[in-house]
């Protein structure tokens, strides 16, 4: 009977997720009734997400454990839920614009597939039990496999979907082996219990390193970090562009939420935060593993991107590198680092979605994402070209854009005196310089190079709606670069994990 009352009580705090589930089912039913391509299903999905956002807002300051320790609500999870809702609403709108989607044989399936990924992401951001983490990760992954193969008649799309599935299944297998070792050693799946056991019992080095590497393999695959990034360029290139944007932003943000909570909570020695620093169990050096992954991601992502000819592949490598920057915030293991990571994630949302929206518009008109084909394109579509230049500069971290604010806070967090991460901050800055090179390559191709017949080709016009969306993405990219107070404030108040203070 006690269980029953607890479940009933938990359902009251489970409303954001419940509204996503309800919307998902409504969209499914609406799709069956309507039977043809219709914006109504998308509108239902967006409305449901807004309702969910309202319930998330109601939980802003709550700290609660739900369903006998399966999930927690804390400001950290709430922040990520906002990110997921915002990005998926924008991406639902992207789907309406993309010709790749219009030409595919499926009609409205994407709206409820996106909702189920959002549900998976919600649970990933708030689960504190290895079982729940695995299940929510798989819910998100299964949906991404389907979305990657969305244009079924397109060979590239089903090919990328299959590669994604094979890599995904293999890496989640590796992660599960790590989890099983952790379970065998500690006898529990609850990460707070595990943390308590690890803190009071001597842990053999070989065991703990193997476990951490195996778990990092499964999560690094989700955040597309080196060396678990093999799928990223292929899947990014092969999937329809709105799906690529979704994977690059929402799905990887979900991965970051999970990796952060798992590492910060599981290897926590005491729940007291001293001077903003998390106290890590002595002898468990998980930061070393994250540092290796982070530095490798930055270097591989930035250097391989230089040679890319496909814009989507280039953005793929760029997001590998961006993931590397974000992990730097986790390495510091204090509230400043965590805040910096959250700031960077929200900056990344605007600038990356902007870059992908321009890609969608260009692919719609040109039918290809080859950078060579974009020569002189800046003169044919001046506004879109300038917007692309802004997003590219923001991604490389030029001042007066939101990307700079993200990098600035990350570097500040790394340069905390006594932490010994100065070299890391320098690596990060050098990498930003390298990244400028390939981001500018796109701009250069659009504005400085001219195809032989540029002058003869007519200018390209887009619908008014696409300009509106573009402006709506441009405004936060520049505005928050100049007036970043609100983002910083939100991130600072969100860097609170459940049960740690």
């Amino acid at each position, binding site marked *: 009977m006690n269980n029953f009352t607890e479940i009933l009580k938990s359902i009251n705090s489970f409303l954001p997720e419940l509204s996503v589930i309800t919307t998902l089912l409504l969209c499914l039913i609406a799709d069956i009734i309507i039977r043809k391509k219709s914006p109504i299903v998308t509108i239902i999905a967006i409305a449901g997400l807004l309702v969910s956002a309202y319930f998330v807002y109601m939980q802003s300051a709550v700290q609660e454990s739900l369903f006998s320790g399966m999930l927690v609500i804390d400001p950290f999870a709430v922040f990520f839920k906002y990110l997921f809702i915002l990005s998926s609403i924008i991406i639902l709108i992207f789907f309406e614009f993309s010709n790749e989607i219009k030409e595919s044989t499926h009609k409205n399936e994407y709206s409820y597939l996106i909702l189920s990924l959002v549900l998976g992401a919600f649970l990933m951001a708030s689960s504190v039990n*290895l*079982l729940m983490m*695995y*299940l929510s990760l*798989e819910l998100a992954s*299964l949906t991404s*496999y*389907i979305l990657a*193969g969305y244009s*079924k*008649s397109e*060979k*590239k799309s*089903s*090919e*990328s*979907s*299959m*590669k994604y*599935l*094979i890599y995904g*299944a*293999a890496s989640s*297998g*590796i992660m*599960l*082996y790590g*989890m*099983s*070792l952790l*379970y*065998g050693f500690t*006898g*529990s*799946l609850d990460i707070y219990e595990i943390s308590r056991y690890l803190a009071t019992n001597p842990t053999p080095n070989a065991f703990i390193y193997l476990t951490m590497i195996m778990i990092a393999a499964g999560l690094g695959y989700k955040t597309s970090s080196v060396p678990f990034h093999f799928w990223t*360029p*292929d899947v990014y*290139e*092969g999937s329809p562009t709105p799906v690529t944007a979704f994977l690059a932003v929402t799905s990887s943000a979900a991965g970051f939420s999970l990796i952060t909570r798992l590492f910060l909570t599981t290897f926590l020695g005491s729940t007291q935060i001293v001077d903003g620093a998390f106290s890590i169990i002595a002898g468990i050096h998980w930061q070393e593993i994250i540092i290796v992954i982070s530095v490798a991601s930055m270097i591989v992502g930035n250097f391989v991107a230089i040679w890319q000819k496909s814009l989507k592949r280039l953005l793929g490598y760029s997001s590998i590198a961006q993931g590397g920057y974000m992990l730097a915030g986790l390495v510091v293991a204090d509230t400043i680092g965590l805040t910096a990571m959250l700031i960077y994630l929200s900056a990344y949302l605007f600038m990356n979605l902007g870059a992908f929206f321009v890609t969608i518009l260009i692919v719609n008109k040109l039918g290809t994402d080859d950078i060579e084909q974009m020569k002189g394109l800046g003169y044919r579509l001046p506004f879109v070209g300038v917007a692309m230049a802004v997003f590219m500069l923001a991604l490389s971290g030029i001042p007066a854009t939101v990307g700079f604010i993200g990098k600035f806070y990350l570097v500040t967090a790394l340069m905390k005196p006594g932490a010994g991460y100065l070299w890391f901050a320098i690596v990060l800055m050098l990498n930003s310089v390298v990244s400028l090179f390939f981001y500018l390559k796109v701009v250069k191709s659009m504005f400085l190079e001219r195809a032989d017949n540029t002058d003869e080709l007519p200018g390209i016009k887009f619908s008014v709606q696409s300009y509106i969306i573009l402006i709506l993405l441009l405004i936060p990219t520049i505005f928050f670069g100049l007036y970043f107070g609100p983002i910083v404030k939100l991130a600072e108040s969100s860097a609170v994990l459940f049960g740690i203070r």
Partner: protein
Amino acid sequence: MVELNYYLGLSSILFAIGVIGVLVRRNAIIIFMSIELMFNSINLSLISFSSFLGDVTGQILVFFIIAVAAAEAAIGLAIIIALFRNKGTVNIDEINILKW
């Protein structure tokens, strides 16, 4: 009474066989079967831990792993069939529009 280590050893052998299969084979369906072998080795290790701990939590995790594996197999096979319709092969070496 067979000791825990024997079961764990067996599970790691199975895991290694699965990894070899994933790395070496080129037929998508066989890669898929190798992944199933990996999952089974995990299930075996979880159940042996659970059994020697006297705690059913591990078995519940296995229950969910089996459920997810079934869902994954359904999607995986559907993708493989869609790919076969498009390209007429399930051999990964011939699936090369994208660089592997």
